[in-house]
């Protein structure tokens, strides 16, 4: 690409306003991104980041305002226009074709063709070029594998790679690290520095503010569809960023808990699922919050799914309040008071086109039955009760959950298990993709659960969360529990060391790993 004048930003959005059905989502928002810089875009869920980026991608047209590329005003009527101007996106919701291979996805729409009248796709060249890109970026993927067979993290890497092929001026990354491991995040950051050096402007959206410390050059903060701050990253502290995002001081992210630890509610013995985890034994008592740490692929999600019965284990035993759970199955687990908050709320959690009230009662419809009949009044009353308890917004029992923000959707799911009178809560990444304010409300709800005598198991990749919220941390590595740590007397570095380093390395006293900068501060 040609050299750009440093005075003119590669991309500028001026006075963008957009409303849907009378609802103003963006109002007079501006944003500029310079070539060779990483520009952070932050804001709570529902602040308008995604809408702003969809306007940039040509998915939506703004009601007013303009987009300038290298100083020239340009209108994007459709996504192809934005791509044509060298603007590429990595969406939070993965947008890959699952039945095509890694290489086919990377070059989708720009396949290398053979010369000649037939323009046949040159598969060999495509695979070779894809492999070259992946190895240049340090991503370890087989180019011929179908995307459907890849893990979420690997799909994210494919998506990132594809965007780098498309982008000539601007690359937008929307929560690119949400499913990546520490090592992959390191690789991504290295790649981002590379892209900067090539003169691309990068717009980086993330909830993990600590990540931005490592890469951001400047920042724009949105709140309720308005721009509330714009400036250099170095001139603002993380606390100030949070204050701008939520519009108020967050006194305590991790509220204190005073729960009495009682009898054992969940006991797992020698639980094994071939290829995923083996010989897992642990217990969780009433009033206790147990954390499970580990890298992606360590078997944490599979473990809680096995306890819940969604993915039956091959061997081992599960005891609930002392009695053995035969042939685990979700309906039996629910009946016995186990609730699983899954890591993917859209796929396995919410009925998106149903109302909040209907989603709330789904795991315990019995409670709103009068003989055979559903009692709508009682259901609505229950919905209003949980709206108050968890500050669910908007406060409308009939609201379609698909139209709620991510943080509120997560609260709906937590409310579902509260309503089901669960005694054992298995929470898989309970705050992934959740904004700061909802996050602390979720933490408060978790504390209330423990105080009310529930046993809570939290699987999380967010180490401050584990250290701040749990009574014990079990660290999993390659399907086994390798350490049990006391959050009061451990550090993020120590948890990571157990999660990522082979025993032999530790014993040999090799250098402590250097790649663990992820989520180590808040």
């Amino acid at each position: 690409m040609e050299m750009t004048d440093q005075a003119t930003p590669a991309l500028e959005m001026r006075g963008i306003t957009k409303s849907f059905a009378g609802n103003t989502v963006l109002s007079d928002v501006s944003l500029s991104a310079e070539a060779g810089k990483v520009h952070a875009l932050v804001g709570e869920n529902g602040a308008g980041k995604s809408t702003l980026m969809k306007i940039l991608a040509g998915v939506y047209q703004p009601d007013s305002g303009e987009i300038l590329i290298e100083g020239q005003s340009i209108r994007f009527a459709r996504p192809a226009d934005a791509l044509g101007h060298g603007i590429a996106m990595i969406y939070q919701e993965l947008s890959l074709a699952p039945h095509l291979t890694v290489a086919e996805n990377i070059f989708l729409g720009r396949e290398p063709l053979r010369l000649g009248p037939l323009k046949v796709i040159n598969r060999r060249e495509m695979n070779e070029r894809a492999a070259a890109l992946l190895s240049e970026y340090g991503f370890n993927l087989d180019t011929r594998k179908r995307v459907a067979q890849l893990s979420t993290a690997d799909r994210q890497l494919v998506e990132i790679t594809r965007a780098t092929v498309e982008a000539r001026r601007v690359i937008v990354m929307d929560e690119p690290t949400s499913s990546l491991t520490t090592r992959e995040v390191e690789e991504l950051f290295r790649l981002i520095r590379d892209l900067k050096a090539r003169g691309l402007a990068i717009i980086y959206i993330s909830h993990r503010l600590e990540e931005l410390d490592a890469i951001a050059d400047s920042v724009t903060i949105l709140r309720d569809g308005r721009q509330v701050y714009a400036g250099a990253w170095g001139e603002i502290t993380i606390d100030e960023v949070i204050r701008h995002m939520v519009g108020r001081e967050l006194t305590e992210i991790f509220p204190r808990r005073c729960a009495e630890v009682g009898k054992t509610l969940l006991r797992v013995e020698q639980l094994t699922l071939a290829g995923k985890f083996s010989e897992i034994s642990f217990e969780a008592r009433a009033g206790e919050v147990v954390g499970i740490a580990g890298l992606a692929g360590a078997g944490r999600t599979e473990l809680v799914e096995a306890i819940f019965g969604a993915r039956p284990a091959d061997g081992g035993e599960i005891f609930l309040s002392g009695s053995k759970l035969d042939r685990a199955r979700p309906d039996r687990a629910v009946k016995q008071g186990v609730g699983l908050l899954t890591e993917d709320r859209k796929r396995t959690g919410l009925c998106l086109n149903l109302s909040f009230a209907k989603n709330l009662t789904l795991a315990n419809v019995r409670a709103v039955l009068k003989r055979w009949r559903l009692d709508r009044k009682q259901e609505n009353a229950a919905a209003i009760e949980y709206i108050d308890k968890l500050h669910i917004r908007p406060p409308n029992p009939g609201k379609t959950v698909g139209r709620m923000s991510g943080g509120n959707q997560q609260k709906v799911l937590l409310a579902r298990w509260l309503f089901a009178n669960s005694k054992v809560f298995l929470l898989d990444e309970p705050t992934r993709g959740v904004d700061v304010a909802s996050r602390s409300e979720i933490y408060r709800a978790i504390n209330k659960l423990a105080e009310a005598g529930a046993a809570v198991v939290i699987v999380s990749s967010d180490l401050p969360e584990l250290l701040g919220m749990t009574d014990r941390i079990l660290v999993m590595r390659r399907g086994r529990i390798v350490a049990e740590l006391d959050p009061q007397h451990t550090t993020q570095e120590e948890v990571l060391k157990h999660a990522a380093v082979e025993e032999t390395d530790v014993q040999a006293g090799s250098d402590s790993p250097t790649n663990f900068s992820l989520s180590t501060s808040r």
Partner: protein
Amino acid sequence: MSDWIKRFLPFVSLVALCVLIAALEPRFLSAGNLAGVARQTAVITVIAMGMTVVMVSGGIDLSVGSVMALSGVIGALAMVSGAPVTIGIVAAIVTGAACGLLNGAAIATLRIPPFIVTLGAMGIYRGLVLLVTDGKAVVGVPSGFGYLAEGNLLGVVPVPMLIVLLVAVATHFLLTNTRPGRYCYAIGSNIEAARYSGVRVTRYQIIFYALLGALAGLAGSIESARLVTGQPTAGEGYELRVIAAVVIGGGSLAGGQGNVTGTIIGALIMGVLANGANLLGISSFAQQVVIGAVIVLAVTFDEFQRRRLEATSA
């Protein structure tokens, strides 16, 4: 606002259609003709009630026409061999329920797409009924049987209309006021979410298909009463009309949406279209073209609405 349009558009279309036909051909409004329309749409509507349940749960059943023929013939055979009329009707309903149960079991336990399973089942049940009857109509049903299709309660209310009413009220209650109904919408909206909430998805899917089968069996009885024979070729192409009734009435092929009132209006729209075309002397071949176009229109409208909703929710 758009929800409102979506709910009332089918009704408004039905009224507009009636007004148009009545203006062109006043005979349309005669009591005899309207009762005829009610009788003709009864069979489709009864099956469409069950189809609404199955489609709300995210499924589909292409075999209903064949199930209807098989059930009608089994019921007729029972009566011809001496069984009383009620037993004949029960036999038809049980046959239909059994067919639906098999469909549901294959779909839910083997996890094969319903479109494929029921496409196969459509051929299987049709083949069975042709084998059983050797392709010939079953004649000699008791004379009292005809009451089911041609009779009038208290001399005015056509019996099939009464049956439709009863089935519709029951289905509406099931979908809106009971736990299985709630699960039906939940499964159709997100089957994995339902499973992870402790809903016994497999069991309920089988129940829904069995219910549809039973209603197809009941419809089979009405149809054989109307024809006064058990016809092995009855109900050909009905699956399309039944699915169209659900879709026109606001049901979604993606599941999670649909309701009884909408489906009834959908069925009536098609019944009135066919009747009006007959009155106006439009050939039945042209009618097929019109009905096909209406289906495409209804789905297009539904799809556009959904996209608009998705855009506003972003």
